[in-house]
């Protein structure tokens, strides 16, 4: 038992050290140049993403393909969906940075809009994280039925959040 305790303690300490080091040097979600916006915000094809995790599409494929082919295709679709979610995730991180930078502005209206954008972006990051977890579970078990509604509902909320983020315009 003692060796387990030693391993737990050293692992915990090591992970904490590494995590804090990365936070300290800005390793998590480090962005290059905020003003170079074009290179930071990636285009997100929302209809294509929605199509990839549409339960009806999935049901259609399930009914019309043999199970092994369905599993293979479903995994490929889910991997593509993960790319989309990660893209939204990265965009949200950029928007948080931009919003936080604008929040310090002296103009209260602009600051308030930026704060709204930051809040929505952080929520989008959180939702993306849950959606990613669900998508990874789906990849492991592509035949699972139960996760469909969960992903779909979360996706709906995610799109709504994305809408909120993009509706908030920076003057």
């Amino acid at each position, binding site marked *: 038992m003692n060796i387990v305790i030693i391993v737990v*303690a050293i692992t915990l300490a090591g992970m904490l050290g590494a995590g804090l080091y990365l936070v*300290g040097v800005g390793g998590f979600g480090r962005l290059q140049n*905020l003003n170079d916006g074009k290179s930071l915000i990636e285009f997100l094809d929302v209809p294509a993403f*929605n199509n990839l995790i549409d339960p009806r599409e999935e049901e259609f494929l399930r009914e019309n393909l043999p199970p092994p082919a369905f599993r293979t295709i479903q995994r490929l679709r889910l991997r593509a969906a993960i790319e989309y979610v990660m893209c939204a995730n990265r965009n949200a991180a950029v928007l948080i940075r*931009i919003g936080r930078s*604008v929040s310090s502005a002296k103009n209260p209206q602009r600051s308030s809009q930026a704060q709204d954008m930051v809040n929505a972006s952080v929520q989008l990051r959180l939702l993306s994280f849950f959606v990613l977890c669900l998508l990874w579970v789906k990849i492991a078990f592509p035949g699972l039925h139960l996760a469909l509604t969960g992903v779909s509902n979360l996706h709906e909320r995610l799109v709504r959040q994305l809408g909120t983020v993009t509706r908030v315009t920076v003057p």
Partner: protein
Amino acid sequence: MSTFAMYALWLVLPPLQGAIAYRMWRRKNYRDCPIFFAYTIEQLARFAILFYWYQIHDRTTYLHAYAAFQAIEAILQIGIVCELYSDVFRPYEGIRHFGRSFLRWASVFFLFLAIVVAAYSTGADSYKFLGNLLALERSLEIVQAGLLLVLVVASSILALQWKPRTLGIALGFGLFTAVNLIAYTVRFELGMSTQQPLSLVCNAAYDCAVLIWVRAFYAVPKVVPELEPRPADWDPHSWNEALSEYLHR
């Protein structure tokens, strides 16, 4: 040599922590981080009392005073972790409640882990009081390290930005928590023979942590040039238009 090093590492603390307390008092930082301020004051009092008992060679009184201060310190350190959570999540209104939930559930999990670790530990110390004290300290370090780790992971998942001072406090705190966790574990397993070198390592780590805190409170804040938003460049409108178009289909 090791006695000299130990005294040097010990004696350097009061001026540094005094400087932190002075700075916090002058700038009224105690309003933002009251528990960290209380902790700094407690450390100064702790030094004065423990140093006195150490010098008059009253080992039993020293040990009991040390245990009492460890108990107070443990409460304050957990309080500082809560303060860090609050500081990191405060600017993000939409997920503030997640910060509290993370803290609550992580506390329950790591407290459970600490209890399991303490229950299954069989230390190498023949002096039972010291053995129990070390087991307790290690459990506390596990809770603190775990809570800090959850904060770091959560903030990286959510891309939250840390204020420089909060980051400084967390870095210092994380440094000595990680070193103490390893040191207490090794000390608990190997017994008294490792006491001297590990004590030096822990003291050195704590001194480094205090130096990080001094820097956090005395560093001149960087003036971040305000970002001039260039909608034409990163163009959120095109996102909006694409989404509206899709929704109206």
